[in-house]
């Protein structure tokens, strides 16, 4: 099941019902806290749409608190010992050019990447991602749900390389394992 969190609702509930702008670090921290409380009620494995559609302005401080710090808890870094406490994936929807400016900046700072759906409906990967991984995500997005062997054929690479690439996308929260296959985050949301 895909969950939906409207950021303007979280903002109104956690900070103030007068604002539609996500600005200042305390505001971002409060909104992230609100998101995490909702996630805690959703179970161990979640795919959640974080909806920016009704958000006016997003500044760097808020983007850092809401996007980067939310995601960083679930991304498995190289050499990480502890696995994330919950298996959570996110699609950031309703993102406009101005939001993207702030989001891309903080993602680059933290070496993160997300799947974003812009306000004109396009789905894309935003942030720091090596070109082969970006191409792999785009291929998976086109394929929809696929096993490693489908991806291997499409990409023209060896099976073990295909599995490594898909697992890397999963660690970065850009693809999910579903039974014995994989699906690109964003392909289902």
């Amino acid at each position, binding site marked *: 099941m895909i969950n939906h969190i409207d950021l303007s609702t979280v903002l109104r509930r956690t900070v*103030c019902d*007068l*604002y539609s*702008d996500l*600005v*200042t*670090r*305390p*505001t971002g921290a409060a909104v992230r806290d609100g998101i995490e409380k909702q996630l805690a009620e959703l179970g161990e494995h979640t795919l959640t749409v974080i909806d920016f559609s009704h958000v*006016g*302005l*997003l*500044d*760097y*401080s808020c983007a*850092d*608190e809401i996007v*980067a*710090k939310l995601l960083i808890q679930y991304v498995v870094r190289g050499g990480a010992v502890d696995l994330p406490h919950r298996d959570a994936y996110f699609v950031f929807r309703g993102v406009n*050019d*101005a939001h993207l*400016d*702030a989001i891309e*900046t*903080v993602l680059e*700072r*933290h070496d993160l990447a997300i799947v974003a759906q812009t306000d004109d409906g396009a789905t894309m990967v935003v942030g720091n991602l090596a070109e082969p991984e970006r191409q792999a995500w785009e291929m998976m997005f086109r394929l929809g749900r696929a096993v490693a062997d489908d991806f291997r054929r499409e990409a023209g690479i060896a099976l073990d390389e295909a599995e490594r690439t898909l697992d890397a996308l999963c660690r970065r929260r850009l693809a999910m394992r579903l039974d014995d296959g994989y699906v690109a985050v964003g392909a289902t949301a």
Partner: protein
Amino acid sequence: MTTVINVPQSLDDKSFEAVLEQLAPLALDEKVLLDARHTRWASPYGLTALLTLAQTRLERPTLSAPEAEETTSYWARTGFYRYAEELFELHGAAHKHRPSTESDVLLEITPVAKSEDVHEVVWRIQQKSQSILARELNIDARATMGFAMTLSEACQNIVEHAGRGGWVAVQTYRWQRRLGRRVVVIAVCDAGVGFRKSLETSQTRRLSDRWDDGMALEDAVIRGVSRFRDPGRGQGLAGVRRYIGRWDGKLSVRSGTARIAIVPSWDDDVPLEENLPYFPGAQMQITIPERVADR
């Protein structure tokens, strides 16, 4: 004894240094009279820095308001007297505050002390800035959002680092002498701890032989260093720098005894000035020029 400090005829970030030079030899508890009777023009920086200056004095200073009707009327429209009457003994024809209905004052002088103030500033600037920036400065809507983000980050510097409240003001005007174009100017001034002391509270600060206001400004403004360990910190000023770079703007930040500037091709300012007269806190100015090439 009261010492008279002459306020320049034209008061901006540069000429404000003349005010600070006159103040430098005086004890903080010495009574001063700021004589602005002959002042004809003041930038947002000049006005917010005057309020900041008053905050730094232990003895309440006196301000002789400009004599020129046009000038003092303009100062009233910026909201200057509303706060000045709390901080100065006012002499002369200080006008009662009149909310600005004209387009040149994008944001009246506004106190900033807490996160809610930043929300208020961002909300107010968006009400007014979009059409004015597009119509008068030929800046597109995307840049208007960036402008509000820049303003937000500049104001947050006060909330996060200053340790006391400050002031923000935004204005557009024609910068005939230096540029021959219209500009929009953001001034954010506080009399708080300043960049050097703020960074000194960081346990991760690198040790070096040289540590002064100039280096603190280089660390914060150029290298994005913050007093917080959190790697996400320090992005605000980096974002401001990126915005002014994109729109050929200028950023200058003064703190303590130094002033750093990101200087565009249309300006001849120096990147770093040191050994200036000491002034507490941080004073920031962001200037975005009218876009001409796209017209």
